[in-house]
């Protein structure tokens, strides 16, 4: 099917984009990579009256790395982030997770920030942002605000973004030195959205996982019994994960199967992250 008609806006600067979005309010929708929005429009599940195409706004295709964070601009494509050497050195989890996002061809166009704003409960990046205590920078014509991951993801396909706002960047906090990370998932077919996925960070004084596919959004679980240099308490880990998740059945998997996957993948992700932690006791 073909998208419904809409009015197209092509701002050439950030201020212009914010003015257009302010003027349109509820009627305006941002077009970034279009890798989620265009299929939704083609299937007529979405029919915005106005599209504000931000692909021609200069200065947003950025990957910034410093000693504390990796900050990704609104127009950095998944593939740009995935292949950025400095971002990989600083935060390998980004590449570990991005490799599971669709196919390389989709990653060449889709943006990392767009994936966060889209807020698909099966998407990898929201789980990563939550896992790393990250935040999203939202700008409107009047103000800028920084929203922590924990309050950014509200429900399936629902985030804290308000009409008139543009997400200009996402900030991922680097875990403590000596931590290891991993991202594992199970998909029905190569490149599909995951049935269940788990990201893990294991450090000397904390360990945590974020799961996708087992709730209305990413689920964060702190696992003090899985820290780097202590013997792993399998039963405690199982109990904490069990308490946090609430999987539902759909055409891809039963709730029980998702629950089973969650526990298997948590073990796998913790083992991989532990193995990669540079400071671990031999």
């Amino acid at each position, binding site marked *: *099917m*073909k*998208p*419904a*008609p*809409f*009015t*197209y806006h*092509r701002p050439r600067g950030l201020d212009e984009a914010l003015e257009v979005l302010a003027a349109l309010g509820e009627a305006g929708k941002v*077009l970034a990579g*279009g*890798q989620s929005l*265009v*299929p939704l*429009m*083609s*299937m007529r599940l979405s029919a915005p009256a106005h*599209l504000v*195409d931000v*692909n*021609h706004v200069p200065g947003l295709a950025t990957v910034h790395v410093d000693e504390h964070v990796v900050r990704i601009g609104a127009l950095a494509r998944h*593939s740009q982030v995935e292949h950025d050497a400095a971002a990989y050195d600083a935060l390998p989890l980004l590449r570990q997770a991005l490799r599971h996002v*669709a*196919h*390389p*061809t*989709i990653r*060449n*166009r889709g943006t990392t920030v767009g994936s966060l704003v889209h807020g698909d409960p099966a998407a990898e990046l929201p789980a990563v942002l939550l896992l790393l205590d990250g935040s999203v920078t939202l700008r409107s014509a009047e103000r800028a605000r920084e929203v922590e991951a924990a309050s950014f993801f509200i429900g399936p396909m629902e985030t804290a973004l308000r009409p008139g706002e543009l997400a200009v960047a996402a900030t991922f906090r680097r875990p403590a030195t000596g931590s290891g990370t991993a991202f594992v998932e199970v998909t029905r077919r*190569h*490149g599909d959205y995951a049935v269940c996925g788990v990201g893990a960070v294991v450090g000397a004084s904390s360990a945590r996982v974020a799961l996708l596919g087992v709730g209305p959004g990413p689920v964060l679980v702190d696992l003090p019994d899985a820290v780097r240099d202590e013997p792993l308490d399998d039963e405690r880990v199982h109990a904490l994960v069990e308490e946090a998740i609430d999987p539902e059945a759909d055409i891809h998997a039963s709730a029980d199967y998702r629950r089973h996957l969650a526990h298997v993948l948590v073990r796998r992700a913790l083992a991989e992250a532990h193995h990669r932690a540079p400071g671990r006791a031999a």
Partner: protein
Amino acid sequence: MSVDLVRVSFTVNGSPYDLELDPRRLLSDALRHDLRLTGTHVGCEHGVCGACTILVDDAPMRSCLIFAVSLDGAAITTTEGLQSSDGGMGPVQRAFHECHALQCGFCTPGFVTTVTAYLRDHPSPSPEDAREAIAGNLCRCTGYQNIVAAVQRAADLVTEGATGACVAPGTEEPT
């Protein structure tokens, strides 16, 4: 509803175009209907099958997931643009032909563009690499074996010129 047409300029296979399009025109439809470049095929129209894959500034993308008006200033390459300089088949096209890597041919333009871009970054792929390279493209006919062979054959053709022959995976014998 009357729509405002939007002006967009880009190049396709090196030729400049300056068009006025309905903004909802998908790039796949603009190529096929407005430019009459019907080499690009349309299957699923939601990003899954890969038949519509074209190159935007040398990177493979789904033309069914891009509004044509969004590509102002871009350099687009379709399978028509991947011929050799004398107008014959380019190396990837030739490899698909030699290895019998197509039957109905519906999926082929998307494979040709995807493989062309892949070989630029990975000049000598193993069979496993070749499978990974084409994992985002569906083919209903061939069973993929000959496509994997074609990826490797194309790599030889690109790097060495026109020697050797097509070798199917799992055999040492030319097919």
